[in-house]
């Protein structure tokens, strides 16, 4: 197995709400190597969303360690985690999460603004990223003027623009019709072919079938590994 991008060791996550404690993750250990395309599957309530949040540095584990691209991010401050998300992770969401008031390329340049990159470079890289996802002719369209599949392509471009170590896609086809789903999955296949590390969270077996490896989550544990583990 190649050098791991993601290395989880005995990760627990406990949510407290008043006196009630819910253990969403109960000791997950997981390695995902560079260039892997992994699908995380599981029914709702299985802890798959929690796992995704921890993988995406949007939340921190209660105990256990998480190394992302060789760096331990388990105990990082909020500010450092923001920098890690900006620099190493590209997110693709089910709801696309594009800002309606901004044009396609303005949406794509957002992560670069937070990285402190200059205007000219930002614009060029945003256009490059949009070109890579086949949206070069829609640079100045606002999300409202684009179809669902096109919006998700813009979102993928935004995830790619920082050249992150990991692309994390949370139900990226959940809001798309079958045609657009195929379209976006083909795009992920291309990214995989280009050597990107992709973790895709889904509950559809058909979508997971595109990945070379499927990780099943049940009751807060990783219960089954297939493929290249």
């Amino acid at each position, binding site marked *: 197995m190649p050098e791991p991008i993601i290395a989880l060791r005995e990760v627990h996550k406990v949510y407290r709400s008043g006196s009630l404690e819910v253990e969403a993750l109960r000791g997950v250990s997981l390695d995902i190597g560079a260039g892997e395309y992994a699908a995380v599957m599981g029914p709702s309530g299985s802890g798959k969303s929690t796992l995704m949040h921890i993988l*995406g540095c949007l939340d921190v584990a209660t105990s256990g360690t998480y190394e992302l691209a060789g760096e331990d991010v388990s105990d990082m401050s*909020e500010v450092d985690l*923001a920098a890690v998300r*900006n620099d190493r992770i590209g997110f693709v969401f089910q709801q696309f*999460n594009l800002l309606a008031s901004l044009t396609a390329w303005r949406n794509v340049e*957002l*992560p670069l603004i*937070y990285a402190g990159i200059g205007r000219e470079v930002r614009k060029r890289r945003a256009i490059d990223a949009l070109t890579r996802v086949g949206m070069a002719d829609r640079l100045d369209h606002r999300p409202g003027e684009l179809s669902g599949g096109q919006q998700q392509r813009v979102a993928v471009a935004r995830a790619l623009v920082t050249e992150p170590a990991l692309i994390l896609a949370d139900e990226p086809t959940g809001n798309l019709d079958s045609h657009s789903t195929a379209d976006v999955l083909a795009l992920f296949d291309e990214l995989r072919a280009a050597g990107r590390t992709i973790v895709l969270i889904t509950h559809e077996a058909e979508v997971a079938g595109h990945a070379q490896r499927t990780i099943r989550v049940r009751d807060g544990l990783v219960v089954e590994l297939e493929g290249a583990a």
Partner: protein
Amino acid sequence: MNWLETVRTGLQAVRAHRLRSSLTVLGILIGIATVVLSVGLGEGTKSSVSSQISALGSNLLIVSPGSTTSASGVRGGFGSAATLTVSDANALTSKVAAPDVENVAPVQSASLEIDNGSTNWTTSVVGTTPQWLTVRARTVESGRFLTAADYAKATTSIVLGPSTASELFGAFDPVGQTVTIDDIQFSVVGVLRSAGSDSSSNLDDTAIIPLSTEVQRLSASSSRSSLSSIYLAATANSTISAAYQEVDAILLARHDVAATAADFTITAQDSLLSTATSVSKTLTILLGGIAALSLLVGGIGVMNIMLVSVTERTREIGLRKALGATPIVIRRQFLVEASVLGLIGGVAGAALGIGGAIVIPHFITNDIVVSPTAVVGAIAVAVAIGVVFGVYPAGRAARLAPIDALRSE
């Protein structure tokens, strides 16, 4: 993320919600316009009142007859008693008894008809001495003022106020012409320069003749020696109160009355000024208070809108955080938004206030003086309101956890 990008992002957000932003701005705008106008109105009133008062003459004291309660408890009307005489006025010129009095101008005035052929005009005819010009801080526009010789010989020279001159002679130069009062011919020797008018009397509508002439030829015999008032100039602003004491002592001694039964009243110009100033200060504070309240309401409007904005844009905030925005960056973005709203409201409000200051004086008698300091101050206050009332909403935005924010629908 640097400040330039933060400002740009803030402006984008303001632009993206135009209607909401402009309604918020309206609240601030009205507040700032009110502040600019009310401060301007206060300043305008203050400066017009003080210019009216200083137009009376500098370091001026005015002695008026009567106006005290008599032994029997009957209070005479102001200026009704005939207690001031020419010899009182002469006594006040003593450099020994009244060293702080520089000039004395006794005045006997009467409302009389002046004729120029078939044209006639009734005005206040003032009999006085040559000192009047200095004491009342007036100057002559053309010709000359009364001289010591005019007074000594009780000549029939007359100096007209500019309004009186134009009523009698139109645009024609009256110097060298003659006018008639009570069948006595007077020759016009000069015209006063305009001093404007105060709210109670027109300083330009008057005619000045030697006191000696007025006393001997125009007054009824019963009131010959009595004066309407005595105008005095103190040697300096700092000696006004000393002059006041001296005049008071001399007149009390001459009239042989106790201070409590004084049959004259002395008014100092500076006391008029300070009364007027304190009145207009009260006015300014009152108006300013109302303006401050409207600004407070505007500020609460900003806070309200920013809170709505934070709630409505929870997903956006979550996304920005997921993409790498730190809490500080998010806080700044919302603070910039709030202060941009404040700034736009401040600038527009100041513009409206300045516009009002130009237009409104056409409909009311008061001047509105807008000082640059007040305008800059008002804009600064508007921005500060944006920041102060933006802090809480911005803090809420900054504290949102990215997952909670992304999850919200």
